[in-house]
């Protein structure tokens, strides 16, 4: 599918570029803008980002594949990220993770059939003092138990 930035986003991109002495450092910010517009980073998106920043397509791929927050395939409307690192693990992180897997019937990296939810097991999110945690897209939910997870998922379904 063709991809071009909206005029507003092109303005935002110019703003990001102005933060640096050259164009290239804007690539991380531009990829975020692209992901916001397209939902994930497809080949067409990379092509367009490369074009906008005078970079090579393979350089963009190099960036996208290095950083875990750029989605190389489509994710659900609600991308659930469960931390299972030590501090969360000690407070039930894996119980939360297993529960979400079972409830949604998907594995790590999976997307539900209705494309509503996707799941990712993530590394420490900086919520160790409020563990266990789950992030839904960009929002953190902390100090969780299984009941609260159920409530969160139910309320997202109705959103």
């Amino acid at each position, binding site marked *: 599918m063709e991809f071009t930035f909206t005029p507003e986003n092109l303005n935002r991109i110019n703003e990001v570029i102005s933060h640096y002495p050259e164009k290239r450092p804007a690539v991380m910010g531009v990829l975020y803008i692209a992901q916001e517009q397209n939902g994930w980073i497809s080949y067409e998106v990379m092509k367009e980002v490369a074009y906008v920043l005078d970079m090579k397509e393979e350089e963009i791929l190099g960036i996208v594949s290095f950083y875990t927050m750029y989605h190389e395939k489509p994710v659900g409307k609600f991308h659930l990220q469960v931390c299972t690192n030590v501090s969360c693990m*000690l407070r039930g992180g894996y119980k939360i993770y297993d529960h979400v897997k079972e409830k949604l019937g998907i594995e790590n990296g999976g997307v539900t059939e209705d494309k509503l939810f996707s799941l990712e097991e993530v590394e420490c999110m900086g919520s160790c003092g409020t563990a266990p945690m789950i992030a839904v897209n960009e929002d953190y939910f902390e100090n969780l138990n299984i009941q609260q997870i159920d409530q969160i998922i139910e309320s997202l379904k109705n959103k």
Partner: protein
Amino acid sequence: MEKIVLPDIKDLHLIDVYIQNGGYTALKKAFSQTPDDIIDQVKKSGLRGRGGAAFFAGLKWSFMPKTSSKPKYLCINGDESEPGSFKDRQILEFNPHQLIEGTLIEAYAIQANAAYIYIRGEYHKWIKLLEKALADAYEYGFVGDKMKEKLGGNYSVNIYVHKGAGAYICGEESALMNSIEGKRGYPRVKPPFPAQNGLWGCPTTINNVETVANVPPIINKGWEWFSKIGEPKHPGTILYGLSGHVNNPGIYELPSGTLLTDLIYKYGGGVPGNKKILCVIPGGSSMPPLRGEQIEGIKMDAESLKAAGTSIGTAGIIVMDEDTDLVQVLARIAKFYYHESCGQCTPCREGTGWMLKLLNRIAKGEGSTHDLDLLISVASNIEGNTICALGEAAAWPVRFMITRFRDYFETCVSREVTIPVANKVHSLRHTEYPLAPIKD
């Protein structure tokens, strides 16, 4: 005890409240002095980095060349991805202006042409909060072109927020610079050090968020005042993070040198169910773990922890009670470093994978005592043989956990070697029967 970085003032994140409480006066004061005066005061204060290595901040600033044909840069490290660390996030939320003011003072001291605050991408919400605070500071004239008019003098600087995108390694200072440059976050071989050859090949200084947030009070109240707080060799307060098996996990700002047991029992409310402590990691998951019976009397500052055989790291204290499955914990830690290794150095790239495989084997109940020796051998071969300190970060927990909890791990493995012979020979070679050196 007075709190320096996270004082209990309501709505301190708002610029007006911050100003009412003396905010941005340190900046004015700094501007009336020479950059060298500022570096001198920070040196004398004894302020040490809060990002992991506890390096002396003033000394680091003094490495910057006084004259340079190239621009100079300041990077503030808010990548905060070490498991067990969640302190910088509190500064972004509750006291972002002190971070901005500290950044401006440091930028002035090293005469930076621009400053970049690098925040991990997952901290989306906190980036928004910082950006709001920064926009207000711009509007009030504390940052950017309006500075000269507002503060007098000839210096002005812009501050930009750079959002990371999920890579622990970008917290390593040279990887962080590559990331700002729009490259993969690969650490660079040192030397050259950032003060000579940093961002875009220009002189650069990198400091942690908490480190710079300490600077405005030092300028305002004087280095002598600061140097008398806590332990003289590592003065000031520290944002201690408590997580794992404690009743009241969270961030506690207390003087350096606070007793580890006080943190856990007095402030953290002890262990749920009054259980005994099996293990404590005092400074984020990469630091050498301590046995529960070892922690009595240990003070939380760089020198005391070094003497105790571990390290302050990010002061993220992870507490594990007596029912914790240490094999699972260590396997999880190993998985993290395996996942985060950037892959440039063979010992780190391969070694982290081997350690994870061995630990998973032990976790499945198929491990042998030889695996424990092999783990120590692999870990020891990573240490000191890599470009960056992620190598040590991956090796330390494995080596120290197994040596310090040998009795525990022995009960989790069998004496029999159950793996195929080829592997057996391999593991023996590395332990009891090293190959004879080749002679000609």
